């Protein structure tokens, strides 16, 4: 009987080894270890043995069983691995195909506007949006531009009638803000403005961002500090800021602000028209008359104001050649940013 077991074990081991699939292996298992398998059949012959031989033979049979079980497991794992690899290989797909699923995007102007707002908000600036249709008072008079003043020629304004017009500058919001808030104050006002000007480089609608700080002891140096920080944030950390004297009725002194050209780093290129500098905004110390108009004592408080075109900043950042592209809304354009 011992021999029979050894023979059966060898036979079974050979068949395990020869099995080529998991199902073939399962058949071998049934054949030897199943309920009426060969080993089980053999076990039935145990009752013919003498009582002292039974435990001995039992151990032999069990050892054989254990050995075969581990062979089955080993072979089973190996076959499973092979079949898995085969299946996975057969499931391979072409990964170079794309299924378009558009993710929408903000308009580049608004994306830039959001970045600008976040930047100033991080420094404690309040955000205010004024009306786009304004009165002459807020757009001009309170900003020290009386009726029929030549400074009005600086901006071609759309008029509606009565005292109303389409605001030509976000500076209008300054006055509204200072009527409602007293210093210390820091605010920005981003928004749409309108000028009766339509050619290759001008759009009758564009977006500005006005900034205003009023507090005790505010100076041109503070203005330069804020604008330098702004310029470095948006045009790169090596960006330099230059002030040039200018004139705006609502600031005194007034400056035009240039930043060093981010494209050529001051060498001179097409973007900066060879000067190495790009004009980006107008600014200055808030005119004492404007503070007085808003019931803020100019002998106690001083402030600075600045204003720039968001369109221009967006165009510089993204290298957009024409302002008109921004308002055309060709989807191929909108997808780019």
């Amino acid at each position, binding site marked *: 009987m011992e021999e029979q077991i050894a023979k059966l074990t060898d036979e079974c081991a050979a068949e395990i080894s020869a099995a080529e699939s998991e199902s073939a292996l399962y058949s071998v298992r049934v054949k030897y270890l199943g309920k009426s398998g060969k080993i089980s059949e053999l076990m039935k012959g145990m009752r013919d043995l003498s009582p002292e031989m039974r435990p001995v033979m039992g151990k032999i049979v069990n050892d054989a069983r254990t050995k075969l079980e581990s062979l089955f497991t080993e072979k089973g794992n190996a076959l499973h691995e092979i079949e898995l690899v085969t299946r996975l290989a057969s499931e391979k797909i072409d990964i170079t195909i794309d299924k378009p*699923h*558009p993710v*929408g*995007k*903000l308009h580049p*102007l*608004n994306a830039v506007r959001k970045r600008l*707002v976040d930047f*100033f*908000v991080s420094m*404690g600036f*309040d*955000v205010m949006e004024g*009306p*786009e*249709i*304004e009165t002459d008072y807020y757009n001009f008079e309170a900003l020290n531009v009386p009726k*029929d*003043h*030549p*400074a009005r*020629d*600086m901006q071609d304004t*759309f008029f*509606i009638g*009565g005292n109303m017009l389409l605001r030509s500058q976000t500076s209008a919001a300054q006055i509204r803000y200072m009527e409602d808030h007293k210093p*210390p104050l820091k*605010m920005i006002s981003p928004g*749409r403005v309108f000028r009766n000007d339509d050619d290759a480089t001008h759009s*009758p609608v564009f977006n500005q961002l006005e900034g205003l*700080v009023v*507090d*005790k*002891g*505010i*100076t*041109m*140096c*503070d203005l*330069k*500090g*804020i604008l330098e920080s702004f310029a470095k944030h948006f045009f790169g950390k090596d960006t330099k*800021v*230059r002030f*040039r*004297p200018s*004139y705006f*009725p609502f600031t*005194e*002194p007034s*400056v035009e602000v240039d930043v060093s050209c981010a494209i050529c780093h001051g060498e001179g290129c097409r973007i900066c028209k060879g000067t190495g500098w790009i004009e980006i905004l107008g600014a200055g*110390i808030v*005119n*004492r008359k404007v503070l007085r108009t808003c019931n803020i004592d100019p002998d106690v408080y*001083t402030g600075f104001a600045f204003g720039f075109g968001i369109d221009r900043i967006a165009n510089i950042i993204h290298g957009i050649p024409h302002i008109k592209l921004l308002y055309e*809304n*060709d*989807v191929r354009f*909108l*997808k780019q940013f």
Partner: protein
Amino acid sequence: MKLPVCWLKDFAAVGNATPQEIADALLSVGFEVEEIIYAGEDIQNVVVGKVISCKPHTNSDHLHICMVDVAKEILQVVCGAPNVKTGDVVPCALAGAKLPGGINIKAGELRGVMSYGMLCSGKELGVDDTVIEGAEVNGLLQLPKDTPLGTDIRKVLGLDEYILDVSVTANRPDCQSVVGLAREVAASLGVKFTPPTNKYKTVEYDGEYMPDVKIESDLCSRYTGRLIKDVKIEPSPEWMRKRLRLAGIRPINNIVDITNYVLTEIGQPLHSFDVRFINKGIVVRKAVKGEKITALDGKEYILDDDMLVIADSIKPVAIAGVMGGEFSGIMSDTASVFLEAARFDRRSIRITSRKLGLRSDSSARYEKGVDYTSVDEGRERALSLIYKLKAGKIVDVKADEGEERPKEKIIETSVSQICSIIGIDIPKQNVEKILRSLDIETESKVRSDKLTCTIPLYREDIEDFADLSEEVIRYYGYDNIKSTFLKSASCTEGGESAKDRKAGDIKNLLCGFGAYEMMTYSFIPEKACDMLRLEAGDERRKVIKLKNPLNEDTAVMRTQLTHSMLSTIALNLSRGNDEFRLFEFGRKYIPIAENELPDERMVLTLGFAGKNENFYEIKSAVNAVLAYFGVTYSVDYSKEPYLHPGVSADFTVNGKKIGSCGNIHPTVKDSYGINGNVFIAELDLEDLLDAEKNEIKYSAISRFPCVNRDLAFVVKEEFNIGDLTETIRQACGADLEQISLFDVYKGEQIEKGYQSVAFSLRFRSLEKTLGEKEINTLVNAATERVKAVYGAILR
């Protein structure tokens, strides 16, 4: 302002500074030079040559073969001019030359004879008799015989000059003149400034007619006049004509040229009247409404009673400061001139000029503001030029009406106050030096910070210390300003408004729907209302109109954003972009009352285009937006005239319609030229954005298993599936976690007029595992309810 460099040099000792250096100096003190113009830009490689021999061309009846001496060489040139002859000194364009009008000269054969250049006429060089005598003859421009051969023709024609086109800011009318800018250039470069000196002699007054002057309106603060007799009208000298031309002014005759010369140099407009046509004195008065005058431009103008005129005892002879009358101007036989130098109110001139649509160099200058002193300086300058040019005899009689010379403004300030807004300490000596270089006298005591500044009358823009700060830093240099970071400012609370934040959230949400944000103009054509088929009484037809629109397409402020959306969709489709989603967040402008600011309301539009789009796609986006605000709404078929009546919905929130979405009405599609599958939506979000948004509160998530059941009902087509769904939801109560439609079928197996509607239901309780029995009870409740309400039969 066109500033010829040669003219500037009369007053500012700029030495050999290049035009670029002068432009840089101006820029550094606040005067942008828009362009540096070279007067001879159009002409290159044209020199003075002498015709040393001239033979007829054997192969032509009018051409000549000339040998021309251009100093460096002798050239053979074929010439077709009728007046060419040996000994002529003429302009000779060399091979490679450029002439006005973009003409390039090359060496070439003319009827078999080589020509190495071209002899030029005045016309070919773009000049006329005012530039050089003989320029307008038919044929070659004959130059003086002693002109050095080989000289660049631009030197001979006075075109070897640079002109700076300076942009002068509105606060500096005093710099609308050569002298004013020369003062700034001199101060900027630190060189000497010499104001013009005026010398002339007068002849005794012997009783000839001299109009006396009366000012009857405070729009004229000063009026002075002088009498010039024995006037001889002739062309002004070459140097004066040249300068006027460089400044962009056409020379006319000596008297007119002198007034223009002074306007450019001093910045004072002058006017000369022929005394013959001034009847019994001059009155400066307001016009009578309806009064007429024919101006020098030959046109008749009807005046208003807010306009100022210069009149004699009978009629207006000039529109004050704007233009003279046609019949009182200088003529070729004018013998006596009344020369006016006056100061008119700048607002009045501006209003008059705008109302009449009549601008002149004079009105442009007056609009910017003329100061007290320039009246005298301008007049004296003109008189000295009349004397110098021997244009007439200055009679020793004066008219001088109006205000006395005002006192100079005194500003009491201190160096520390001047520096306080600049933020850096500038030494007192620098401050004083800068102010003095600008003609601002300063007085101060040793070891005192205080400054007493006397402001010259022409600096009307300087009102207080802040203006002095600007003068100081302008010259001290903005580069000296150090950056500080709000070192004395208080901390402030900033941030976006809740409204902006909500708008931002909505935009992000729509980006998630694959929609791109667009931005369009706020003004649209008035015909948009018709294109959208809005009814006659539609509120959206009440638009705010622009008084001065760019064109018809941008004439009215929008009362809806759908027009902009449809136009943008049409543009994209026409460019072959056929599948896209767009959204716009913008304002509409709803008039409230006359002379009251309108209601500006935030509106959202959506546009979905492409073959895979349908009503439910856009509705789901609208749902998502409304869900963001946490509001409940109801829908009904839309009444919007621009939408398809059967494939569109109006959305009502709190009893108020806030918008619609749907397919576009076919007629509207045609109007916009839209050809494709397009769905749009417009929502007025103003109220929702304004409303306080409650914070979202957690609702419990069940930990028990769910049971899914599918149910299909056969129901009449006329019933809405939305209502059916709601009924099932109500019948099942809180344990119905989710119900979703998965199939609607009409066809063979279903009776006509009926549809099969299949739902997936998911049941789950917050308290326990639901058993079979409980699920069946709920399903039965739902089945019986829809049977009772809609007659729906479970399939």
